[in-house]
């Protein structure tokens, strides 16, 4: 069965510090991987996605993620966070072998950036 696990439910960090949000997936076939962000009281928006090709994916707001097939991971990183990055972050991937986007989401990681 396919699944995605976010290893940290909460990550507190100081402003301008680097951050890594961890995501591991389980799948026996090739995957696409997504990171979505949910700001307080808003819907989700795409940060970045890995489809194929380069394993380092750059997204919006200075975030990037690296696809690591051997470790089945897709960790999200930012070298220097800002207060406005405070949000909940979701790792997700679609059900493989379908022609539609049935996304499976991780449990979410709340990133809190402190001044």
């Amino acid at each position, binding site marked *: 069965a396919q699944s995605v696990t976010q290893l940290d439910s909460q990550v507190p960090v100081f402003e301008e510090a680097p951050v890594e949000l961890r995501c591991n997936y389980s799948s026996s076939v090739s995957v696409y991987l997504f990171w979505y962000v949910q700001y307080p*009281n808003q819907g*989700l*928006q795409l940060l970045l996605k890995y489809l194929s090709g380069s394993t380092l994916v750059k997204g919006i707001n200075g975030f990037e993620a690296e696809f690591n097939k051997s470790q089945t991971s897709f960790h999200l990183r930012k070298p220097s966070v800002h207060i406005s990055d405070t949000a*909940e972050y979701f790792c997700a991937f679609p059900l493989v072998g379908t022609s539609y986007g*049935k996304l499976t989401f991780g*449990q*979410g990681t709340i990133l809190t950036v402190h001044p």
Partner: protein
Amino acid sequence: DTAVSQTPKYLVTQMGNDKSIKCEQNLGHDTMYWYKQDSKKFLKIMFSYNNKELIINETVPNRFSPKSPDKAHLNLHINSLELGDSAVYFCASSPRLAGGAQETQYFGPGTRLLVL
């Protein structure tokens, strides 16, 4: 120019009532979705429609009935509301079925439903 909009934003109602949530997208997308986010922020897909045709129907009580009058709208009707239905319901859309699993989904702001 909201891309995916939902109404109402908040909905407080009594157990046993019937309520509807409306969703509209002005992105020209073919596929629309309903997700439920529970109190622990866990997101789970409920339904998906492509060009008014139901393509995903997860294990959801049949008190929940989606309706798509056209490809820009996907409404969710809930009969006989229960306490456990309290959650945030998100509508989303994506460009085209052919793009399938690669497509980005665009989410609405959510409808916060509280059943008393």
